[in-house]
């Protein structure tokens, strides 16, 4: 398989993830879209690493740290979602607009 095939899959995953962040009106969907975007970035990193043998495992190491940060981000974001629900009684991002006024 050529490199472009993997890049195309990653691009499609990124587009779907960004659309999910932008157009679903539920904070949990925003989280799932973020995970999709991070997965697309990881796929790009690993694909470029495979097609560039002189870099040994550098791309995979970067992807590994992205996974670590994604785990931390998911824990914090879920805590924020639960807190926002108990405070605003809603998890629609459109309705949480206190700072707009």
């Amino acid at each position, binding site marked *: 398989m*050529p490199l472009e*095939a993997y890049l195309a*899959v990653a691009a499609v995953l990124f587009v779907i993830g960004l*659309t999910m962040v*932008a157009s679903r009106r539920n904070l949990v969907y925003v989280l799932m879209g973020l995970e999709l975007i991070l*997965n697309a970035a*990881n796929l790009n990193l690993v694909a470029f690493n495979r097609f560039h043998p002189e870099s040994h495992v550098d791309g995979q190491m970067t992807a590994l740290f992205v*996974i670590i940060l994604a785990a931390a981000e998911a824990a*914090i974001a879920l805590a924020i979602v*639960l807190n926002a629900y108990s405070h605003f009684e809603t998890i629609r991002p459109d309705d949480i607009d206190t700072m707009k006024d």
Partner: protein
Amino acid sequence: MAALLSFILFAGLSIGCALLCLFHRSVVISAFSLLGTLLGVAGLFLMLGADFLAMTQVLIYAGGILVLILFGLMLTPGDPGEMQPLRIFGGLAIVGGGAVLFLMKMAGVAEWGSVEVENLPAPQPTVDEIGLELLRRDSYLLPFELASVILLAALVGAVFIARRRFEYVDEGGKA
């Protein structure tokens, strides 16, 4: 031939499940189809010779982050009228149009289709190399140690943010 078939299988699994996750009305089915996407990406990692990363993806994403998301679903209410196909198609058109424009811009700059993965040297097992890189002082030792600090901070911060405040206020008022 086997490489093409497995690529189509994994890529189709990840993209199809991602589309199902984007368009489905039920949050629970969306979360479980995200599992299919994560497993498909893990398969693509395996095809790219990243065996350790594929197993990490299955363990941490499918085993950890997805369970966190499911807990988030259980503790927040459902929102039945939330899914609006028009809004999703509009977002898909805008974001996808931007991506296509960017790819057309890139297509003129880069050389495409020059390297096939079959012509590269065969992938070696990466577990021992990743372990050595993580503990070598002039490569990834500092980020590795910082990652443990970040995970601890995230853990404590999540507990601090999500704790209940009003119970303490009530007990303080009584006493």
